[in-house]
């Protein structure tokens, strides 16, 4: 498809992004990561900084429905995007089912990795629903079954040093069973 460069240059890039339903102007410093923008400019500190290098998953957010490490992405790249953070998933008074299940199953201790785990789990459920395979799926062409091993594999980008893993998987299994995701 041919691109009309003259027309493209006339269209200013979108310098705003939608975060949890509200449109925000992106930062002017091109060095600012999506993570630091959310935390420091928007005050959405539910998204955590654990390593700033994409190694721990604490900063997981949903961008247009897909999970990414917000620390590995510059804010300026997100013009026109729709971003959902933990604050958009539920509030202390109105918890989403995943959040409620984490509390019930004690799927956290210190709580620092927790928002990332929950954002990751939310995207994971959508990926399962869409039939995405993983490295441990026996048949990559078949619709995946949310076995504990599948869930562990798909959650392995989110570290938890307190070691709440078994409880996190139990929380996920509960919600997946209740919502009949797969």
């Amino acid at each position, binding site marked *: 498809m041919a691109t009309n460069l003259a027309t493209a240059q006339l269209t200013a890039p979108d310098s705003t992004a939608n975060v949890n339903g509200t449109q925000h102007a992106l930062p002017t410093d091109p060095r600012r990561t999506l993570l630091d923008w959310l935390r420091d400019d928007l005050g959405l500190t539910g998204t955590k900084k654990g390593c700033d290098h994409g190694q721990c998953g604490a900063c997981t957010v949903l961008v247009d429905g897909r999970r990414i490490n917000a620390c590995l992405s510059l804010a300026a790249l997100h013009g026109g995007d729709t971003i959902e953070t933990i604050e958009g998933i539920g*509030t202390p*008074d109105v*918890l989403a089912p995943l959040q409620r299940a984490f509390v019930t199953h*004690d799927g956290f201790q*210190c*709580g620092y990795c927790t928002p990332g785990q929950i954002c990751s789990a939310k995207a994971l459920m959508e990926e399962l629903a869409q039939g995405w395979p993983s490295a441990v799926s026996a048949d990559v062409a078949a619709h995946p079954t949310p076995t504990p091993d599948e869930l562990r594999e798909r959650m392995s980008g989110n*570290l938890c040093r307190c070691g709440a893993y078994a409880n996190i998987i139990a929380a996920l299994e509960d919600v997946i069973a209740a919502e009949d995701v797969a």
Partner: protein
Amino acid sequence: MHLPLSDMYNQPDERNRLDHMRQGVIGKPLDRPEGPLKVSGTATYAAEWRIAGCVDGVLVLASIAQGQVSAIHRDDVLAREGVLAVIADPAMTRRSAQGMAAKAPQQDAARVEYFGQPVALVVAQTFEQARDAALALRIDYTDASDPAPFDPHGSGVKVEAPSDSKPVEGGDLDQAMETAAFSIDVEYETPGHASAAMEPHATIAQWQGDNLVLHGSYQMLAYNVKEIADCLGIAADKVRIIAPYVGGGFGSKLGITHEAVSAAIAARELGRPVRVVMTRQQVFQTVMRRSETRQRVRLAADPAGRLIGLGHEALVSNLPGEKFAEPVTQATEFLYGGENRLLKVEVARISRLTAGSVRAPGEAVGMQVLEAAMDELAEKIGIDPIDLRKRNLPATVPVEGTPYSSRMLTQALEEGVKAFGWSARQTRPCQTREGEWWIGMGMASAARVNMMVPAQARVTLRADGSALVETDQTDIGTGTYAILGQIAGEMLGLPIAQVTVTLGDTAFPAGAGSGGSFGAISTGSAVMRACEAIRETLAKRLGCDETDLALKDGSASGPGGESRGLPDLLDGHDLVETGSIKPGKTAKEFSQASYGAFFAEVAVHAFTGEVRVRRMTGAFGFGRVLNAKTARSQCLGGMVWGIGSALTEELAFDTRDGHLVNHDLAEYHVPVHADVPAIEVILLEERDAAASPLQAKGVGELGICGAAGAIANAVYNACGVRVRSFPLTLDKIIPALPDPFASAV
């Protein structure tokens, strides 16, 4: 009966008050009250407070191992946009404070003692500006004239006895080894470990006149206040630390460290709030490491499998002059018999970052080695590893003769055996093969000393009949919010929703702090005592003895059936009491420890040597369970650490310059979801009056103490490879693997 109001815990409190209360909330698996905040991202951690005018500082680390800063080229970076200051103050720290130091650690950051030590702080309007300037800052150094070596096992290393512990010696170990029917003499190694708490160390420092307010991430606030005050040369009562939520600690936040001190100095110099958050790499390089260990274990047994001799000697390391020495033999002192014994720790003085407490200092690495060695001995004798443990539980602590307050090891072994299905274990290795995987089972005992430290807490029974618990005790994920509320709810007869717990602020009475598994029993006992004092007043008003007072669901009733609602008894006024406890004679007169047993099933790949943990069971006895949900989580978490310690975790230092090579989470491998199988946790019923008035003992570290040994023993049982160097990575297993094409050996 009058209450034992002495702070000192000198006599076991056999009254067992909690079992005679009526509310029925103690021990229940209640959800954490702060859970909704944590899962919605609205719990505020150190770096997240919104403070007007706050600017960001980034630490600069030394690019040499040892020497002196001779010049800092400030002007280059001060000219950059947004840069406000380059701080290099003599008060800045070069080591972290050890747990419970309550005084400044080594200061004068211009003297470089190890690679990666902080030497300066760059402050700018934004984090990006500060980070770039910190990266660009040029520093000149002169080399040290008398450098310390980098390799604890190299030549010319100075090896010392620890300053605060002595060897345990009894009988004649050499002779016991000679005359023993069965003996082993083995050397094991464990690598350095990182706490790697998920929240990096962070502080926002703010001066209000002469007073300093820190929003920080620390474990032991009452001590931290003194440490920071001593660093700055101000009175401790001028410092307030606020830390309601701490994103994990595991020892690394016991003592004050670089970001707090430098933030406070910068804030004073600039006259505005300064935030310093360490990068993940800085946390690894400059805060605290668990020392690597080299351990020699000698076990001598008689023909019946009873230990007649036990030797456990360890070489650990630390910076010159640093008091802490990983107490490797701490549990070996009391766990098994063998009157002929030598237990000893020595410290090699080297140039690497400060060695200090990482979750379960001592037992975490000592127990995994002792328990692996016990497995070797059981095999040599030809008895079940469970039987070997059971035959060697002494009546009193060897050599010193101290009685045990309570010991649930036998019960843990027996419950674990049943739940895990230990009877299915093959005695000899290489007997079970599933496809390309060898399958094996292993076990280990768990043991961790129990400690109480001074603690205070204030409890207010409000006029409306609700209660408020206040202490500077932290909750680092341990469940403090939950259990302190349950203790108060039980003692005062209140539904849990009627109790509010506020923590982590030095404006409140000084709790124990979180460390050494002592937070719950120490601060919990203080809460209990405050509640007892409130009960005294209520009983008087109702006209009965305190021991006859029944409190439930907000009502008070006496033995004669008289009953009044709390608001009625309180008559519009709050009742406020501060409870206090300090360790006393019970700490010396009894050997106090939490016990347990680990069981692991592993698969070892017959071709690659890859190890997968397939399932684990842990059974634990640690006195009263205060909350079955959070206690179980502590045990689970500990066992996950055991998996890491057994299979993946290892700090790698370059022995040419002491540089920590794997200084982040991509290279230092903590267990991930895929590494952790289903884990079963069994909590045993126990009451230990010597340990605390709550009848409870510590549980925060027990789950790691021996867990890696069970996994190593399972690896041996699976494939017949005994690796005496943790972690059991495949490169160490492959060379000794049996012929993968043989179905059984």
